[in-house]
């Protein structure tokens, strides 16, 4: 059984984002890169499937810059068997990334039985690659998944929709599942795992190797800018219990008379 996990490397959630000089992307020089948080759930799910099916092979695939391979090494330290890196710029669009992931899976020579991804990357927040990749691979897929069971060749996946309701799907492998937070609790990489990961195979391809060119771009970004700052608001001190009723009454009044919201 071959499991492919697609991961992206993204700026840490604490990162303060600033546009670069020509506003074509953000300044990336001093960013701390991490594995996309939703992808950790995908890696963990692959490893849980491998635990139940010891013959399974888990390959982790990433499309992105080579400035470091943190996300792939982390996934292998957690227990993935091998990795593929497709070298690309950090602001590739979803269509090109999906095509590159498909190209890398094809090039691996292994037939994918299960493809796992995070539901979205927290950099461009597009929430598109899992859906496009499934279409390109010709696989059924379910996204925003918080529950996963594999029995034989049947996957049962719980998709979270508006307001926390769940849609329960069944599909046969080969299929693709995009993980949401809550699917499982990702393990930490152990020290022996980190040492072992250094010796695990990491194949490296260019975009051209996997059949992707500039002609595959579908979405163009420009004019990166910071959102407009709000003017300073009004602040009221209500630490003193005697003042609380008056302050709250005033704020609620302002919500009607000034903000005209209630």
């Amino acid at each position: 059984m071959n499991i492919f996990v697609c991961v992206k490397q993204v700026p840490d959630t604490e990162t303060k984002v600033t546009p670069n000089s020509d506003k074509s992307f953000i300044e990336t020089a001093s960013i701390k890169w991490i594995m996309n948080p939703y992808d950790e759930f995908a890696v963990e799910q692959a490893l849980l499937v491998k635990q139940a099916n010891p013959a399974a092979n888990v390959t982790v695939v990433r499309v992105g810059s080579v400035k470091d391979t943190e996300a792939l090494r982390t996934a292998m330290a957690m227990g993935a068997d091998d990795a593929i890196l497709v070298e690309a710029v950090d602001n590739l669009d979803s269509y090109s990334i999906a095509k590159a992931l498909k190209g890398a899976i094809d090039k691996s020579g292994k037939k994918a039985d299960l493809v796992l991804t995070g539901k979205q990357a927290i950099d461009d927040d597009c929430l598109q690659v899992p859906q496009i990749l499934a279409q390109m691979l010709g696989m059924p897929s379910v996204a925003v998944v918080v529950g996963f069971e594999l029995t034989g060749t049947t996957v049962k996946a719980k998709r979270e929709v508006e307001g926390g309701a769940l849609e329960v799907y069944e599909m046969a492998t080969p299929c693709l599942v995009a993980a949401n937070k809550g699917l499982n609790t990702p393990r930490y990489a152990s020290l022996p795992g980190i040492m072992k990961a250094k010796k695990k195979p990491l194949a490296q391809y260019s975009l051209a190797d996997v059949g992707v060119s500039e002609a595959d771009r579908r979405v163009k970004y420009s004019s990166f800018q910071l959102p407009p700052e709000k003017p300073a608001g009004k602040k009221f001190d209500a630490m003193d219990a005697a003042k609380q009723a008056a302050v709250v009454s005033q704020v609620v009044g302002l919500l009607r008379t000034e903000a005209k919201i209630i």
Partner: protein
Amino acid sequence: MANVLVFTETNDGKVKPVTLEILGKLNGQKAEVAVIGDLADDQVKLLASYGAQKVHKLKGANLDKYSPEGYSNALQGFIKSQSFDYVLAGATSTGKDLMPRLAASFQAGCASDCTNFTFDGGTFAGTRPLFAGKCLAKVELTGPKPHFATVRPNALGMPATPVAGAGESADVAADAGAIRAAIKEIIKAASSKVDLTEANIIISGGRAMKNSDNFKILNEMADVIGATVGASRAAVDSGFAAHSMQVGQTGKTVAPSLYIACGISGAIQHLAGMRTSKVIVAINTDPDAPIFTKADYGIVGDLFTIVPIMTEEFKKLLGK
């Protein structure tokens, strides 16, 4: 002028408000609407009053519930039979799942979660937040048409003076095709409130809520003012609230008319997810909490005493 199809979802038979926001913004383009299943005449009239020239009701077997393949196949067949330049939908759970699939079936591009857009000479250009709203960028589409885009609910706002369209309606025979990922069951959410991403008012609790039981004071206020309750990552990771309630970079990005932050310090990843709310009220004991830099009205005080007083004030104001 561009030919634009707007895909609408319904909730209890009513079109989702984001569809009307999109139609209002499409004034000047030729706008038609597609819905899966039936739509009552008053809803067709409503769509017409916001500019819909035509409403296509796609009907067929296996389309009673959402399934990624069923909806995608049905719409793909319909779109192929027409000549739309663009297909737009709300960035809802369904819209965000469906549009990229549909776009990929046309080898076309999709701009996700736009907060604004223009059609200059019939060509789409959108604005969208990236990094959970820490920055904005212009987004343009290229490659085969039609082009696709999703639009964030509550971002455009309702048009002040909508321009009506002809609003003809027609049934279309639609084919859901082979559905390999079949829906077996729907498990309803514990709360019947509207989702955070579509809520007009949100009351969120942070780590200072101390436990999940204390969220009941937020629920009480929410019932009075018709709000949906959210939570910070700290509250979710501490087990006080479900992940579906999380606002922020690893939760939901929201833009309600009113956001009331209770006991939330305002970590950068939380602020990113709620900063575009129209009016922000913050309640926190720490006068230097970063949340106050984004608040229109900040109350430095203890949420456990402030929130109940505020609930009573809202009751008085609303005559409840």
